[in-house]
């Protein structure tokens, strides 16, 4: 299958540029053809132009006037901008992959629930913490019931941009909700910590899931959780090679201090691939990697659909 789908990246900042590098380097099915911004002096637009993309600082108006129109748009602007742009993409029949917290479309984590959302016109990629931890919560909740899941995301201060900083509540609220809706926990809680240490710390995530008491004891339930978590880590590593466990999952018996809950703790490190951003910024890498992954799977889906239509027409 040599056919590719045509993609546009809207938002030529760090995230958009890293995504561009990922698509150019690693994607077999997505061709990034347009890079769109609003600032003519943007470094990101200039860089994209040097890499052979068609670029413009005239925003979405310009993009929608291009021929061919893109099959898919990756939005790496802000929640507000995406909320304004999303209806225009939809009206033009362009699929949107949203890297902002706008949540116009369903929350998507490619290894957990993309298959059921492939036909949605708009896909939201949650948050960096969500992309890192939702797979683990989903892995645990496939093995046992998870009444409560809590995640702590620690990121290097340098990797937290002004958007994240100005809207930090958005991170905690959106991530917590995704732990429930996508991860399968009955209740979710998310915490984010910015650490300024030099050299910058590599992104770390800790996932605590409340589990049934018997699942914290050696036995089949505990084995099932361990197997499920390891399998999930391997699956995520297919598109985020630097995603790894710091230690085996840690099981603890019910404790009064934890309102009588037993828990499993999973300690993750996410080292970025360094495509454009430094490798400590695993938080930024995992969301661009997820976007690229969604792009590839969406491309496969769209091309298959197209071929089916072509075959039928003939």
């Amino acid at each position, binding site marked *: 299958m040599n056919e590719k789908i045509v993609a546009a990246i809207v938002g030529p900042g760090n995230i958009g540029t890293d995504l561009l590098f990922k698509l150019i380097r690693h994607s077999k099915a997505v061709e990034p053809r347009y890079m769109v911004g609003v600032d003519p002096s943007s470094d990101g637009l200039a860089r994209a132009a040097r890499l052979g993309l068609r670029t413009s600082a005239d925003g979405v108006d310009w993009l929608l006037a291009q021929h061919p129109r893109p099959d898919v748009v990756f939005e790496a602007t802000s929640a507000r901008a995406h909320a304004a742009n999303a209806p225009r993409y939809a009206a033009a029949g362009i699929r949107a992959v949203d890297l902002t917290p706008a949540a116009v479309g369903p929350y998507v984590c490619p290894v957990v629930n993309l298959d059921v959302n492939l036909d949605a016109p708009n896909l939201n990629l949650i948050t960096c913490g969500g992309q890192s931890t939702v797979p683990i919560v989903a892995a645990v909740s496939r093995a046992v019931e998870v009444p409560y899941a*809590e995640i*702590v995301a*620690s990121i290097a*201060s340098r990797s937290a941009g*002004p958007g994240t*900083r*100005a*809207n*930090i*509540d958005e*991170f*905690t*609220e959106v991530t917590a909700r995704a732990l429930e809706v996508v991860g399968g926990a009955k209740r979710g*809680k998310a*915490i*984010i*910590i*910015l*650490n*300024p*240490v030099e050299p910058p*710390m590599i992104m*770390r995530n*800790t996932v*605590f899931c*409340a589990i049934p008491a018997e699942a914290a004891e050696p036995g089949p339930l505990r084995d099932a959780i361990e197997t499920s978590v390891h399998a999930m880590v391997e699956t995520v590593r297919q598109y985020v090679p630097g995603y*790894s*466990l*710091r*230690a*085996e999952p*840690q099981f*603890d018996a019910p404790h009064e*201090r*934890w*309102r009588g809950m037993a*828990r499993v*703790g999973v*300690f993750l490190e996410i080292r970025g691939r360094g495509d454009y951003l430094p490798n400590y910024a695993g938080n930024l890498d995992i969301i661009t990697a997820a976007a690229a992954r969604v792009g590839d799977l969406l491309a496969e889906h769209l091309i298959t659909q197209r071929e089916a239509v072509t075959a039928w027409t003939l």
Partner: protein
Amino acid sequence: MDAVAPNQADGAASHVRLTDSTLRDGSHAMAHQFTEEQVRAVVHALDRSNVEVIEVAHGDGLGGSSFNYGFSRVDEFDLIAAAVEEAVSAKIAVLLLPGLGTIEHLRHAHQIGASVARIATHCTEADVSVQHFGAARDLGMETVGFLMLSHRARPTELAGQARIMVDAGAQCVYVVDSAGAMVLSDAQARVQAVLAEIGSQAQVGFHGHQNLSLGVANSVLAVQGGARQIDGALCALGAGAGNAPTEVLAATFDRLGISTGVDVQRVLAAAQDVLRPMIPRMPVADRSAIVQGYAGVYSSFLLHAERASERYGVPAHEILQRVGEAGYVGGQEDMIIDIAIQLAHQRDGAPAS
């Protein structure tokens, strides 16, 4: 009558406001197990001692009840509501750490009567608090900024962060010695730098810990450097070796001729007769707590390190030493478990994963 005349402090303050954090920072030392009855008793005693502000929340602030920091025995909003009901003249303050607590939590606290919002960030990350100061001011709350682990920022850098908070709406900015790591002039230089930056636009505060036994001395130097709000906790009840004790601050300031308005005899009684009988252990500068001050580690990591020590069979002071070397900041309690696991693997000669 005491024959010793009160000393006049250099740059004598017209008035220094004491904020008591027994029911917030002290919550760490209680593993967040305060009951409503205990909160009512402490608030009543502090209020009768004329302590002007009483902070009530989970030790890690609103929304802190969690696996990572420990679950509250009683919902913090129930405790805040009880404190509001019990206080006759004292204001009830809450703490909020952006990234953990949210504006939604703050609204809830305000709705049930909390009137002072204390917004805390790591000392170099003040810009994450901008939306929260805005929300607090919109709610009509008094605002206080809290620059945690202030020893990790140079005085001028800290002053720049205080500027961000003041511009966002903070009416006071605290130099917070979360690790009890500041040694005398460290505290004063930071207070002076912050004051030089914000001038009369906001007040400066100081929050001291006892890990190197300097909480009270640092507070005095802070006041002499221009601080007008000082934190304490009864019986020093707080994270690490505890906070500067409110009752010692009140007595010391009185001797220095610094007016706090606090009734010394009553606050001594509040500490001795009301709080002391309800606490499982008095805070103490033991080996682990001193290591925290010495290595600059966030004080509330202490109990977490002790638990990880018990769970993984590695010494708490070694865990804390590693935490200091790694530069972990407030909120990264999960890293204590991570370090304990790594230490246990090293002990057993096995790779970590």
